[in-house]
């Protein structure tokens, strides 16, 4: 294990905290479900092999934990999932990194400075 838990109590506290996040819910935000489904769908159609996705996910989580960044298992875990997926799709030439970044700029809301109305009054925090 690359991740070291300093004391027994700390591990228990961290697990208790992780158990409190969402005792039953499978996804905490809709994007997690989409990211999950995209990976499974691509494996079902053979665009990627599940084992290679798994390896990409292991690399992603391992790299974070090696530098001491732990995951609570919630949204931060699905960030790793998404990172693993986009990295693999880029490596396989299915969706290039530049192509993805360009599209993100298209779908994203304009930054506040370019928005004449300032902050969206209905804006919610994540």
């Amino acid at each position, binding site marked *: *294990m690359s991740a070291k838990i300093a004391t027994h109590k700390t591990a*228990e506290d961290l697990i208790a905290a992780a158990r409190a996040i969402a005792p039953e819910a*499978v*996804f905490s935000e809709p994007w997690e479900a989409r990211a*999950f489904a995209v990976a499974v769908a691509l494996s079902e159609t053979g665009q990627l092999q599940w084992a290679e996705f*798994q390896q990409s996910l292991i690399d992603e989580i391992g790299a974070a934990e090696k530098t001491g960044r732990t995951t609570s*298992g919630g949204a931060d875990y699905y*960030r790793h999932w998404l990172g693993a997926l986009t990295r693999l799709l880029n490596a396989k030439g299915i*969706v290039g990194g530049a192509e993805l970044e360009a*599209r993100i700029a298209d779908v994203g809301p304009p930054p506040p400075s370019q928005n004449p109305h300032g902050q969206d009054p209905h804006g919610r925090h994540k």
Partner: protein
Amino acid sequence: MSEGHEGHDHHDGHDHHNAPLSEPAQRVKALEQLLVEKGLVNPQALDELIDTYERRVGPRNGARVVARAWIDPEYRKRLLDNAARAIEELGFPPGPQGEHMMVLENTPRVHNLVVCTLCSCYPWSVLGLPPVWYKSTAYRASAVNDPRGLLKGFGVEVGDKEVRVWDSSSEMRYFVIPERPAGTESLSEDELADLVTRDSMIGTGLPKSPARHARESRAAR
């Protein structure tokens, strides 16, 4: 948490943003759009997958497998021999994470505990998707470093039983058949399945006693 997203969700790229999307939500949306345009994913297929794993596949499947194994020694034998096939017998296809599966029997002398130390491998076809804590660094590390302390944290007393920790991988998923609780001789298969909790099939819990189940059902009503 964002809720109530249905009803004003668009897939056409002409959204009016009522709420700014979070950074990962933007990434996923962009990725999905590109894959749809390339003809590699179908948005309806994604909706169906989500519905399947949010609602249809879950620990109720595993509970049925355990209850059958408790009452039918022949089924138990088939389950130990070829878990994926015996699980499919009950109508639960293996799916992407269930092709290589092994069941672990708890006995009066052995308690089994399942973890995935490197990521989050989990027997989806019988348990659905893993709970948040299963994916946490803390659980994945302490299952290996201090399994007895971890079990205590989950309120599981194993006494002097041997604790065996099983590390799941893409080659093999594990799933625990807990010991059948005492005083359940007269229960039906359905009633037995009601006693089998998700955690009891991971090894971080035990099945409910009939008394506890009755208490909880009364409280839920």
